[in-house]
């Protein structure tokens, strides 16, 4: 589903190269975890996948279902099924969460040539998804992310992910700022989205989240490259021994 080939990318503003020859393949149905120390390029990778303009790809390619996505803008990538759950979701004052959900869902339907959702159907979907994430409907009447706690913001991200039904989900540090109860609920929400036709990429600093969302593969990112790949035991190994061993091998 996702194939990243020898990707090199830099910051447009100052030319700093962040991704330096990254290779990664994630199959449909797979849950891949990307781990690595601070500054290894994890969040940058998620932004590049979603099409953020601050980064420029200088070499290599990103294939999604066999097609290069480099020329697509963020909205086009989103409607093609790529979703990024942000580490720091943005506040959108004056725009009720419900309204935002409706606009986003209908824009995606429009891109697929489908009719806008009827209001009762829309409400039903939102209610069902919110119940699963233990979210209060009253919260969804508030402007998106404005005054939400860290945990509420993360839940709202997973709610959007669920409603937009993407094919490639990228979760950037979704566990940061979550207490243990919220972590369980969010993880259950993500696990419910596991499907044979969907790939999930989890970017995380700690092994903690992977206790709840068990990955099929684990990749260690260091200085803009995948330096080691393995199965879920690699995450446990990292937890026990730190990154030093893996990084040492790479260097």
């Amino acid at each position, binding site marked *: 589903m996702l194939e990243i080939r020898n990707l090199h990318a830099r910051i447009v503003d100052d030319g700093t190269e962040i991704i330096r020859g990254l290779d990664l393949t994630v199959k449909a149905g797979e849950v891949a975890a990307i781990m690595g120390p601070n500054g290894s390029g994890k969040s940058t990778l998620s932004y590049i996948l979603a099409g953020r*303009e601050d980064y420029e790809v200088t070499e290599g390619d990103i294939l999604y279902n066999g097609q290069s996505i480099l020329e697509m803008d*963020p909205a086009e990538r989103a409607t093609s099924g790529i979703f*990024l759950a942000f580490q720091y979701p943005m506040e959108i004052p*004056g*725009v009720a969460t419900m309204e935002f959900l409706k606009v*986003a869902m209908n*824009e995606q339907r429009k891109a697929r040539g489908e009719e806008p959702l009827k209001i009762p159907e829309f409400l039903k979907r939102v209610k069902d998804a919110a119940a699963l994430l233990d979210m209060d409907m009253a919260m969804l009447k508030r*402007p998106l992310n404005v005054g939400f706690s860290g945990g509420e913001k993360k839940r709202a991200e997973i709610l959007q992910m669920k409603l937009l039904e993407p094919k490639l989900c990228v979760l950037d540090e979704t566990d940061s700022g979550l207490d243990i109860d919220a972590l369980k609920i969010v993880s259950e929400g993500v696990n419910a989205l596991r499907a044979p036709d969907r790939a999930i990429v989890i970017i995380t600093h700690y092994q903690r989240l992977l206790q709840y969302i068990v990955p099929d593969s684990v990749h260690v990112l260091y200085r803009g490259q995948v330096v080691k790949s393995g199965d879920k035991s690699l995450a446990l190994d990292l937890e026990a021994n730190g990154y030093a061993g893996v990084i040492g091998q790479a260097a």
Partner: protein
Amino acid sequence: MPAVQDTIDRVRKIDVDQYKYGFQTEIAMDKAPKGLSEDIIRFISAKKEEPSWMLEWRLEAYRRWVTLDEPKWARVHYPKIDFQDLHYYAAPKSTPGPTSLSDVDPELLRVYEKLGIPLREQEILAGVQKTDASELEEASDNVYKSGRVAVDAVFDSVSVVTTFKKELAQAGVIFCSISEAIREHPELVKKYLGSVVPTSDNFYATLNSAVFTDGSFVFVPKGVRCPMELSTYFRMNEKNTGQFERTLIIAEEGAYVSYLEGCTAPQRDENQLHAAVVELIALDDAEIKYSTVQNWYPGDAEGKGGIYNFVTKRGDCRGHRSKISWTQVETGSAITWKYPSCILRGDDSSGEFYSIAVSNGYQQVDSGTKMIHLGKNTSSRIISKGIAAGYSQNTYRGQVSAHRKATNARNFTNCDSLLIGDQCGAHTVPYMEAKNATAQFEHEATTSKISEDQKFYVMQRGIPEEEAIALIVNGFVKDVIQQLPMEFAVEAQKLIGISLEGSVG
């Protein structure tokens, strides 16, 4: 946060073609010769068939005006206006004054049709000739359901038609052009005209008092709730012609009226002057809600052409427990100089000012309000949202003052500015003065930028760039949009989108 490069590029490419109302109409006009003198004022007064007291009033204002200098304190820059190089009167030859719809030149009706003005009574009337009475009733019912708006249509210097007059008259409401009011209701005009904005008020108000041509007159008698929305639609068409609108609205004890004005003008290279005076008077327990959707031609991409909109609007809460509310959506004009204000004279009276001012290209906006607290327990509320894009400058200028006797005066002010791109400017200039120790004034101000982060976040959910910006901007102005009469809220939202189109792609 660095400005979005893409946004800047697109702002550079801003195209005036997006101004939808820039067409001009070829129509035979009856004009005063260029220039301003006592003779010209006599000419205007004669054209309007005014009584002699009105002419005297104008001449007195003119004699004062020649002694005045243009105000320079606003944050706007423009070449000196040659007041002798303007026509002060221009009226379509075919329709020299307000008349019934059937007598209006069809060419004029087409103008309003093209502008999408709800002259809906026109359609009803057109239908009447072919149908019988029962169907007519049905038709009126439909109009009721679809929300009715009475319209006074002002074309350059004259009102060409006022709709629903008869029906309003049944409720006791007078809605007509100011020219007609001067002839038909001189006692009311004499009593109230200039009582809120005196002829000596300021340079442009004094000029207006001398040469005003048309505008609306509304009188809602004691205890009457005006049965429909009233509105005036101002169209400036003729070249090198100033438009001097004069509007007077009076709500007697316990009366209520909601009024909306809209404005457009053709696309021209020359600047045109619109200098209006609007006076509102609310007696005991009366309420006036005044909304403006201002969409004068803003000038082209290089800042050439556009309307100079120099306007004095003031409401007098003359009675106890009276209320005046100004709501404005300002998207047009090359230069806007406008401060709709409230004099809170009656005890327990309240004033409100809700404003959205959008500037793009080389537009300059200097707008805000004055809340003058004179009575006891008076309150005022100011919500201002400025949105600047392109190379525009957007200034909020406001004054809140409490008189010595204004015990327990309360004001809440919130001014937010939103910048799109990094070539524009937003400025906030609040003045506050409390001469009574019990006054409570609160002021909040923020300036923010549509960040790359917000735009990226919204787009990541599948919302295309232009819709993403519109969504963020509409969220920003929501508090004010909610104050507009329902049917105009949607229009205003669209208008804001169109005004920013050049800046977001």
